């Protein structure tokens, strides 16, 4: 008893020291990468992402590291709060010696960290946030973004939606920046391709608090030919359930953003709608050699199929390793120069490039339809849509960014 108490007390007394000593024990032959994400706030999306970058770091280090040095990632939880994220970023850079920051999921946290990166002059690779503002209206010299943005994914859907007969569209989107951007982009892209469409109804349920029954009925009342959906997660499940109970989706086309991602599609189980046009990630169905190698290694390590987050996490580290290699040093200016136009030739999703003009990567997404195979919801009839085809030209993109 006494022994236990003494051990516990000793451990407690030593705890504050761990904070002081971390970082000092690092050998010179490692490169420290700072990583921050909403691990407790949104574990369903950030856990697969974490596994993705862990796999990439392990593979790179086993193969000898980058420039002869091992990669080490110091990963922290931002608790879903932008202010905390900034404090952590500060600590990662000034205390832990991180040469760059990557990660973040929520758009506002991505924006907060990108502004911090600009102020403290450190490279930030925004892995997951989708907000267009990160690379356009609030873009800066120090921030790059990997994942295909809201605008790109909405444009991919609009291209498919334009092929439908539907003329009267209704939209439903969570009421915050992501939902608003997604609706705006879809409207403008679809109207460009099909000037005859009209938008007859908009619904804006609060994020994760959708009153699904009433929302479904409001959409139904507008009698649209087709529906554009941006809700996700728990909202999507409620919306699908109430919508199918009330025949909202009978004889109607639905275009739905991100719904093909396993994070969102799998929880719907046997009730997943069929025939929706979606963007997403068909995971183990992708049969390219690079993807097969990735998926096999991922399954061997974690015992589950990779999700969208996994591929984003994995590609983030691939991109960072490529940049470090190209720069030949960990100096921020050298890294920034390397990131400009950096091409990652082999990734599980194919090659992608970070555009010099707006710092957006051309990593694409998969566009297809939802379907049911052996009782499990999957994407069918899908094809890879290269991000480069859904971005404005580099001149137009430059005009969208604030002057440096």
């Amino acid at each position, binding site marked *: 008893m006494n022994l236990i108490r003494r051990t516990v007390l000793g451990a407690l007394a030593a705890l504050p020291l761990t904070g002081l000593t971390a970082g000092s024990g690092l050998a010179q032959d490692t490169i420290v990468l700072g990583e921050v994400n909403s691990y407790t706030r949104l574990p369903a999306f950030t856990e697969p992402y974490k596994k993705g970058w862990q796999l990439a770091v392990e593979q790179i280090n086993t193969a000898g590291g980058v420039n002869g040095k091992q990669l080490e990632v110091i990963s922290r939880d931002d608790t879903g709060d*932008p202010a905390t994220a900034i404090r952590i970023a500060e600590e990662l850079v000034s205390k832990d010696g991180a040469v760059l920051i990557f990660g973040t999921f929520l758009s506002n946290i991505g924006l907060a960290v990108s502004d911090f990166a600009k102020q403290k002059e450190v490279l930030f690779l925004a892995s997951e946030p989708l907000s267009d503002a990160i690379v356009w209206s609030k873009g800066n010299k120090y921030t790059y973004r990997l994942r295909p943005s809201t605008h790109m994914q909405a444009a991919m859907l609009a291209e498919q939606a334009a092929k439908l007969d539907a003329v009267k569209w209704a939209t439903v989107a969570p009421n915050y920046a992501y939902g608003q951007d997604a609706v705006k982009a879809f409207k403008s892209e679809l109207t460009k391709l099909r000037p005859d469409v009209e938008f007859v109804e908009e619904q804006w349920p609060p994020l994760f608090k959708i009153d699904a*029954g009433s929302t479904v009925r409001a959409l139904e009342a507008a009698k649209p030919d087709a529906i554009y959906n941006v809700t996700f997660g728990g909202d999507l499940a409620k919306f699908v359930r109430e919508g199918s109970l009330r025949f909202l989706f009978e004889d109607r086309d639905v275009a739905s953003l991100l719904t093909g991602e396993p994070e969102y599609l799998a929880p719907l189980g046997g009730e997943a709608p069929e025939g929706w046009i979606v963007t997403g990630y068909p995971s183990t169905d992708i049969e390219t050699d690079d993807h097969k190698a990735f998926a096999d290694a991922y399954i061997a390590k974690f015992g589950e199929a990779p999700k969208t987050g996994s591929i984003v996490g994995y590609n983030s580290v691939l991109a960072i390793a490529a940049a470090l290699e190209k720069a030949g040093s960990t100096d921020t200016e050298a890294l920034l120069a390397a990131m400009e136009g950096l091409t990652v030739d082999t990734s599980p999703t194919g090659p992608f490039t970070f555009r010099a003009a707006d710092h957006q990567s051309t990593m694409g997404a998969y566009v297809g339809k939802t379907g049911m195979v052996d009782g499990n919801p999957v994407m069918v009839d899908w094809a890879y849509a290269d991000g480069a085809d859904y971005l404005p030209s580099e001149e137009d993109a430059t005009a969208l960014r604030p002057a440096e």
Partner: protein
Amino acid sequence: MGFYFAQLLTGLANASSLFLIASGLSIIFGVTRIVNFAHGSFYMIGAYLAYTLVSIWSGSIIGFWGSVILAAMIVGLIGLVIELTILRRIYHAPELFQLVATFGVVLIFQDATLAIWGAEDLLGPRAPGLDRAVRIMGEPIPEYDLALIAIGPVVLLAIWLLFHKTRWGVLVRAATQDREMVGALGVNQAWLFSAAFVLGSFLAGLGGALQIPREAVSLQMDLSIIGEAFVVVVIGGMGSVSGAFVAAVLISVLNAFAILIFPQISIVLPFIVMAIVLIFRPHGLFGKPGSEKGAPEEPERPLALMDQKSAMVLFAALGVLALSPFFTADFTTVLMVDVMVATLFAVSLHFMMGVGGMVSFGHAAYFGVGAYAAAMAVKFLGFGMLPAMIFGPICAAMAALFFGWFCVRLSGVYLAMLTLAAAQILWGVTFQWQEFTGGDDGILGVWPAKWASSDKVFFYIAFVLCVGGIWMLRRAAFSPFGYVLRGIRDSQTRAEAIGVDTRFHQWMGFVLAGGFAGLAGVVFAFSKGSVFPDSLGIAQSIDGLIMVLVGGIHALAGPILGAGAFVLIEDWVTRLDYWRFIFGAIILVVVLLAPDGIAGGIQRLLRMLKGERA
């Protein structure tokens, strides 16, 4: 016509779910006076348990309803354990202190749920036999909605019978009105409290379990329901179960129709309704005067000026803080700025709660207004850093002047909830008005001026503003104005009798506290370089509340100790896996060891060391 009738039915079905959780909350508050933040967690656990049970006994009607009831009973049992092990030990703590314990429970449940059920949302089966829609006046209505519409009133009736036809119910109602008297008549209060807590938890669990056929079970369920549940309880009148029913119907039906006209309204609708109801009916629709407060507490010890020894210790600590940038790393300096901001925020809230006797659940409103005003002054008006730092607190004080006028007309929990409504309405405006406030993308690029951009220089700016602000609030507490405020807090009637305009003094106290919260917000904005609606969100308000209560509401040093401990422990603990569990456990340990807060605990410790009897 059919369409509107169907919309009404949809609203009523939602009302039933909302009522179930709100009724339990109302019963718990009515009897035990605990503001139970963990109620949303009970709701979530009920849903997860029901999901697991339904998956085992899937398919049959008896299996489904049996699972729902069993899940609710298990949640009731969990409630019992929490009541017996934690809450029972702290009923004699200052009012609202139990709220801190339930906050710790929320954190623990969040991580426990994640560990047991995993991160992914779980979609349970639909209710067997009720998995279709029927046509009413040509409109499809889900059968399960109709079942819910029936369940709400049935539960209401059951509670009514329980309260009016059983001896236990009579005792519960008696305890709701006068706890002391019930105790004096020889009723075992402890078991009465336990039973009320179990019933409340059971109802929350039932509410969660009944959601299985409607929505995916997710880790966000606890926090997404708790705000609305409180709103319903307050609109109905604290402790009134039938009031909760009426309020649930009012909010749900209003929402069902409002989104037809103005879809964006859902974000703030419940809070707008609550604000309107409270302005016209200060005790909610069915609440009785006096329902907002617990039994009268022992009068506090008057605040005493520090003795010489304490003052010397304080100055030494300040000196160390002032010199810290010279012997610590850059990052520590940044962390210290966060500590000082949190401390000023907590001290301003304590001025309102501890000195002014006005509990606020929405103090972040003024913190956020200060931060936003400064950020917008820089961005749109081209202000420099220093003018913006003056402009921010003034705007925060103006906002407090406006909302305070309404709030000081209420008291107790109703006042607290009206401050929350004010904060949520401001949050909604900030969130929604994208062109002006940037929406949830916030305002970026609010960094300190060039000469102040080094961590050290900014530390001293923050030091001067925050320590200066704390000192001024302390001065105010010992000024004649502070004495009057404390007098009003201790006895409003006597203060009025000697000719004090109580409302006016409380109003001015509210404005002062708001202004200094705004000052904290300004320092915050420049230290982070950006502001987001989170800065006036519920989480920020609750953090402040926890700091004040954990620190000890009856001492001026309380919020300082509370804020320091909160920020530093959180900064350390978030490095660990399952940190919410650990953080929650730490909070519970503090709560159990020091029911009078850290400050009270230290005072007791000192007295014990000196060999005095406490």
